[in-house]
């Protein structure tokens, strides 16, 4: 358990350093939903190569790490209906709110942005209530 927390802190530090590098070098905020969403809805057409390069690194580096070690599993539910509903909710929600865990959470809270703090409070609150309802009350997840 303690080693999980330590790995969390180390991995979190790497995520933070990634965000620092993007901010201080390219002057951009490392928000996953904004970077991906801009490619999907066309709003990020002018800098699509940078977005694609970031997504490429995000996809390829973990793939290489996983290829050279074992025991990785997302432990994702096998229920395709729930996965599809959750995917739609995450896609629509993050774009309506203009940010997700990385943009509002990491990059917003670290500059004491009120929007980032409020967004994080709402998505953590909604996530917690969803677990209570669907896991403990209804027992479907």
């Amino acid at each position, binding site marked *: 358990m303690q080693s999980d*927390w330590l790995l*969390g*802190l180390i*991995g*979190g*530090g790497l*995520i933070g*350093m*990634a*965000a*620092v*590098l993007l*901010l*201080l*070098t*390219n*002057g*951009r905020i490392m928000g*996953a939903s904004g970077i*991906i969403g801009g490619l*999907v809805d066309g*709003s990020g057409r002018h800098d699509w190569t940078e977005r694609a*390069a970031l*997504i490429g*690194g*995000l996809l390829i*580096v*973990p793939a290489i790490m*996983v290829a050279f070690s074992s025991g990785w*599993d*997302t432990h*994702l*539910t096998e229920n395709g209906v729930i*996965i599809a509903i*959750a*995917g739609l*909710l*995450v896609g*629509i*929600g*993050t*774009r*309506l*709110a203009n940010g*997700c*865990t*990385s943009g*509002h*959470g990491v990059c917003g*809270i*670290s*500059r004491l942005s009120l929007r980032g703090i*409020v967004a*994080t409070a*709402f998505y953590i609150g*909604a*996530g917690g*209530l*969803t*677990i209570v309802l669907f896991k403990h009350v209804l027992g479907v997840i």
Partner: protein
Amino acid sequence: MRNLISFAVGGLFGAGLLISGMTDTTKVQGWLDIFGNWDPTLAFVMGGAILPMAIAWQMTNGRKPVLADHFPAPPDPKLGRNLVVGSTLFGMGWGLVGLCPGPAIASLSFGGWGGALFLITMLLGMRVAPALRMRLDQQSAPV
């Protein structure tokens, strides 16, 4: 050069997500499960990521990025309905399966058909979001 930096940022981001355990949905759902077997790992991840960024934001004062003309504008003080509604919808989806946009990409190579299905439906949601936003804004606009 900006593309190369972006690729390195993505790689570092992905390595961090993998090492921290954020591509494991049981850890994410465990953090949200305050009435069950609560897992505090996500708090350590957020803390570890926010700390260097808080220092970096301080360094932006009166400076310019290395490869750009200016830093992002100061945060918008306005909250608005879209922020609250959107974050609530996002949180519901996040709670249901334990994946958010970053880890959805980072775990695609080993997430199986479920991970691919999540990504496809997430992209679909992102595609329809602007039209939905326009409709919501029209409803709230004064007549």
